[in-house]
């Protein structure tokens, strides 16, 4: 057997430079070689039935939510909707793994994670309906606003986690990002800060194969997104994103490590965006239907249902119950969305600063006069007097 000589391990003149010493051992940080799975493996039998049933009900609800929101775009009730059908397990299992005091930092596609965290289904759609930029108070469920500029929420998660640790709280931040978002500079900066500060934060990359039309191979040449962790000095985990209990387990472990002072983790969940980028996108321009079908056959809900049925943890009645609950949620959401929101244009000036500037006060008065004139039917106000 040929033994390669390691620099510094012999009396060879190639001794290390002064003060050099090995830093982090990369081996324990490396992710698994293939995505971690539980469903369909022998370890599945030790899964808690209550957890499985809960995951199932939430996934069914999540899928119904996506379907309802997409329908609302067709009816003109939502400006746009980025569906996460196919990604229910990543988003929901991750959100359910959090403790109440933890914070979630979602990306724009992560409505299901936000709802799973407890935000009202309607409030999670405010941004996309277009009545305001964010529909919920972030403090109530500890959910940051859905973030559109990609990856920019990641440093926020690190900062919040860092602050919580400085205060002595056992709060962990979970930050979600897409495969495309990992290319942004903010991704790099966030991971580096997190590792250097040993911040209690968990990064979850939902690798759904595409950034709009751009496939993985044009996005990254890394062995996996999980491997990127090693370069920052944190552990990387690779998980099947369509295997809800596997996602849940990996998250629980990373959250526990973060909570106990063990620092950040980068998790890659391998999944697939079944629908187009949004209702406005035409995915046939850049991908083959056969690929979509292969992923449909690896459906997160079907995988979970099989496990539940095999272990007789659910029967037809249980499935009907889950579907009925999802249907009730969708019906309520539909009714709420079919009611026009009551909007006050004057609110545009309300939240810009803690105290309204004199300039904004003038502009608010101008709009108010215009609105009064609009009510009276005059085309333009005040022009006659001036």
């Amino acid at each position, binding site marked *: 057997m040929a033994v390669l000589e390691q620099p510094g391990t012999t009396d060879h003149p190639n001794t290390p430079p002064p003060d050099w010493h090995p830093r982090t051992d990369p081996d324990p940080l490396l992710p698994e070689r293939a995505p971690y799975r539980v469903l369909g493996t022998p370890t599945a039998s030790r899964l808690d039935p209550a957890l499985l049933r809960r995951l199932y009900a939430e996934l069914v609800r999540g899928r119904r939510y996506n379907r309802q929101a997409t329908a609302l775009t067709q009816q003109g009730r939502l400006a746009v909707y980025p569906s996460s059908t196919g990604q229910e397990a990543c988003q929901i299992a991750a959100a359910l793994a959090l403790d109440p005091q933890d914070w979630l930092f979602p990306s724009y596609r992560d409505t299901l994670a936000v709802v799973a965290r407890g935000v009202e289904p309607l409030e999670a759609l405010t941004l996309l309906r277009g009545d305001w*930029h964010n529909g919920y108070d972030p403090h109530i469920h500890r959910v940051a606003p859905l973030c*559109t500029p990609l990856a920019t929420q990641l440093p926020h998660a690190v900062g919040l986690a860092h602050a919580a640790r400085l205060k002595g709280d056992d709060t962990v931040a979970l930050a979600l990002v897409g495969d495309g978002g990992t*290319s942004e500079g903010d991704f790099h900066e966030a991971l580096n800060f997190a590792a250097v500060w040993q911040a209690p934060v968990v990064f979850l990359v939902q690798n759904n194969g595409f*950034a709009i039309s751009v496939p993985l191979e044009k996005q990254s040449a890394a062995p996996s997104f999980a491997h990127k962790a090693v370069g920052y000095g944190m552990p990387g985990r690779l998980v099947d994103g369509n295997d809800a209990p596997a996602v849940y387990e990996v998250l629980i472990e990373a959250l526990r490590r973060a909570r106990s002072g063990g620092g950040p983790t980068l998790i890659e969940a391998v999944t697939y965006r079944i629908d187009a980028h949004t209702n406005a996108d035409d995915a046939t321009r850049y991908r083959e239907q056969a690929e979509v079908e292969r992923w449909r056959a690896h459906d997160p809900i079907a995988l979970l249902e099989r496990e539940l049925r095999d272990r007789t943890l659910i029967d037809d009645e249980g499935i009907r119950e889950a579907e009925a609950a999802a249907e009730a949620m969708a019906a309520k959401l539909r009714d709420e969305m079919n009611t026009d929101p009551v909007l006050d*244009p004057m609110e*545009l000036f309300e939240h810009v600063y803690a105290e309204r500037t004199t300039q904004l006060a003038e502009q608010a008065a101008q709009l108010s006069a215009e609105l009064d004139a609009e009510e009276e039917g005059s085309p333009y106000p005040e*022009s006659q007097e*001036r």
Partner: protein
Amino acid sequence: MTAPSATSIGRKPSTMAQALSRALRDAMAADPAVHVLGEDVGTLGGVFRITDGLAKEFGADRVTDTPLAEAGILGTAVGMAMYGLRPVVEMQFDAFAYPSLEQLISHVARMRNRTRGALPLPITIRVPYGGGIGGVEHHSDSSEAYYLHTPGLHVVTPATVADAYGLLHSAIASDDPVVFLEPKRLYWSKADWSADAPQEVLPLGRAAVRRTGSSATLITYGPSLPVCLEAAELAVAEGWDLEVVDLRSLMPFDDETVCTSVRRTGRAVVVHESSGFGGAGAEIAARVTERCFHHLEAPVLRVAGFDIPYPPPMLERHHLPSADRILDTVARLQWEEN
């Protein structure tokens, strides 16, 4: 001699999007140094389809789907330009150009100056900008003031289909960096313009008088031009004959066309949809006042978006300058009779 009209030869009118596409294609065909890069510009043809068909025609080496990173897109464009290429980069939406501002401000804008002219950067940065399309947060910004305040950049914005072609052509041909702002809500505006006819190439820095008038001058650009023209039509009933100047290029700035008009009419209103405070209109009003003071019958006024973060879609109409708001402002130009 006038060119035959579209209807007379049975042509379909073209959109601004088509004119921009055509300008890119012609530039790429004419000069192998022209490369296009950005998010989704290749296979998809861009989210607004402006680069549609280019990857097929010119190949992936010249029309490149980049990783999702705007600083990287512009930063690599700098290196490509240093090596003799002429990159045209696409920022997917106005607000998503912000990660690239470090490269833009610290390098793109000042490389020529820093190197005493040795390293010019002929980069065109195409940015779909502005609101009025019902876009959610971060999809409707008007960021021209940031660019304008950065010496070394040209800032250009078309308001008509023909200008879209002529100005993009000149932007790509320019040896200086050009921020090329494409008004999103005019992408699908149509005009009697044909890619087959010989095209007018427009030098950067020339404003155009879109409507002649004698009462007052509306000075505007990009997405606000159609609103100003609408206001000018409505103003006729009020007895005002408004002139409308379309700047086309904010830098270089055409003082001459603007001041010639204002000296003649004696009144001016600047109109743009980006926030008023510290906006382009402030600069324009100051320049006009400095140069035309003795011809002015009234202070130069501005109609601009409010000084607020861009509103959500359901409220944006209250923010955007409307014809009514323009007329209300015109009414305040100290008319004697009123």
